[in-house]
């Protein structure tokens, strides 16, 4: 899946403004970005629902604008908004879509039963979808998008509204599909979801990709591992700062209300041991000491917050170079 310089302009908003992304075959790419960044727009263009105003994209080897029939035969889509028929029952929906995929009447029925069963919808199968809860509807939507195994699967915030059990179930399904060779583009607001599933993460803001790489690369991008020390008494903070500065050779950061002092820790274990020893020698009562990798939440906030000038374009260019394309 490859997008190059996609543009989409609504009257006065540039929903996409030079969107570039390459996802290698058989991998999962997580698309992160604040509300209104253009994630849904990108997904709708790549799934042939919207026409781009500029740029080009290929999905499963076919050009999105010109060969939409070929593209449609190879993709699955769970959009941000429910795309099932809420007057029909859950079962009728799946059978109808199965028949539209030309599975044949019998196979369409069997497949519907399988999916209802695996998405725990059997009990509600013969009720109209408009009586479903949000999570049930979401599951039906997901089931419909994997009636046939797609080559490329698009999931726009798939687990919004799902309880933890169903979220895990969706993750398992995605992993299974990927194991069978499906490429997945997934947008999400749950960063642990991206962390769990994606081997590549692209952060999008104001219609363009501002950073792209593996989760680890992105975490390193905003500073890598940190050692954090929480002291029992606030008066020990200055001493702790001195100790950490000498151990790590960097300027520690203080969070006074948490009694926490932290500093970058490149050689993780070596720094941890010497810090423990030095703090002990200085007679500082430590409540907690830990090595911590920044979460994707922090990456997200740092990269997309307009407040912090944050990681330069140069840093993200570096990562883009490492990103592979299919």
């Amino acid at each position, binding site marked *: 899946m490859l997008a190059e310089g996609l543009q989409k302009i609504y009257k006065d908003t540039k929903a996409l403004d030079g969107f570039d992304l390459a996802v290698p075959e058989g991998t999962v790419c997580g698309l992160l970005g604040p509300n209104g960044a253009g994630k849904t727009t990108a997904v709708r263009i790549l*799934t*042939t*629902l*919207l*026409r781009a105003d500029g740029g080009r994209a290929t999905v499963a080897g076919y050009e999105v604008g010109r060969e939409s*029939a*070929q593209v*449609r*035969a*190879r*993709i699955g*889509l769970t*959009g941000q*908004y*429910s*795309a*099932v*028929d*809420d*007057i*029909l029952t859950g079962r*009728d929906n799946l059978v*109808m*879509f199965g*028949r*539209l*995929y*030309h*599975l044949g009447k019998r*196979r369409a029925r069997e*497949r519907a039963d*399988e999916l209802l069963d*695996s998405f725990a919808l059997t009990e509600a199968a013969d009720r*109209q979808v408009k009586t479903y809860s949000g999570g049930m509807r979401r599951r039906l939507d997901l089931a*419909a998008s*994997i*009636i*046939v*195994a*797609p*080559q490329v699967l698009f999931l726009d915030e798939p687990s919004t509204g799902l309880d933890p059990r169903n979220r895990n179930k969706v993750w398992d399904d995605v992993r299974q*599909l990927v194991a069978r060779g499906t490429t997945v583009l997934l947008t999400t607001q749950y960063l642990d979801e991206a962390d769990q599933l994606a081997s590549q993460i692209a952060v999008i803001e104001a219609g363009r990709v501002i950073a792209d790489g593996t989760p680890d690369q992105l975490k390193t991008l905003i500073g890598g591992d940190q050692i954090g020390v929480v002291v029992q008494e606030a008066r020990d903070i200055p001493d702790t700062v001195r100790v950490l500065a000498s151990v790590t050779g960097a300027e520690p950061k203080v969070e006074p209300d948490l009694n926490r002092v932290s500093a970058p820790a490149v050689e993780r274990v070596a720094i941890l041991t010497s810090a423990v020893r030095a703090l002990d020698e200085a007679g500082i009562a430590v409540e907690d000491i830990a090595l911590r990798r920044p979460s994707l939440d922090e990456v997200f906030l740092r990269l997309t917050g307009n407040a912090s000038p944050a990681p330069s374009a140069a840093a993200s260019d570096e990562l883009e170079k490492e990103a592979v394309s299919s």
Partner: protein
Amino acid sequence: MTAPTPVIPQSGLERVRWAVSDTWTITLRYLMHLSRSPERVVGTMLFPVVSILLFGFVFGSAISVPGDGSYREYLLPGMFAQAMVFGIAGQAVAVATDVARGVNDRFRSMPMSDSAVVVGQTCAEVLNAMLDITLMFLCGLAVGWRFHGSFSDTALALGLLLLLRLAATWIGLYVGLILRGPESGGVLMPLMFPVTMIANTFVPTEAMPNWLGTVAEWNPLSATTAAARELFGNPGAASTDVAWPLQNAVLMATVWPLVIMAIFMPLAVRRYRRLSR
């Protein structure tokens, strides 16, 4: 659990077969919708039934027609034809509601035939119309209307009525697709009145002012009404309707719907393809 691998049609012939099968699947979808909302079915059937009973009895006895038939016999073919086009407004609203549903996103991201959604919807409308016609036919007989033509003429008359319905369906579909949402459907109902009234449904066109009469004579609805009168052997046929389109009513009742479809079919299919682009 193994998901089947997707297939797509390879030859042109297979593509046609797929399009037909997709259309049928969508037709079934609309029929299932109808079966889920009996009030809509009853509503669409009630309208023609009530209007036949009402007009048949209220006007039927009071007004006399040129020639010597009962007004009721004169009126009913017009009521049949009017019912065929009156559905346009309701259908347009239904279409506008339907395309606003998210499920169309799924349809349009699937490898199904582009026209299946719109064609399937018109198929369902025509099936629905068959039910309406049967019902109106029976109601007509109940209020004292009779057909005097041969079996084949009667069948032809019914066929022409359905043809008009089919053409009207494409208009309703197109209008539904250009509406900005179901709310804007309100403007349609008042527009339906001139279309159905400026016609030979209730009174002969000669009785109207000159220019209005001409408009009425060229109204497709008038052609179907005149053709139905002629074929059913009801009063008010060619003898009084001297204008050319009504002299050749059967021809015009065939040509008009075909012209309408030739215009609105491509418009509607194209419009559906471009939705939300």
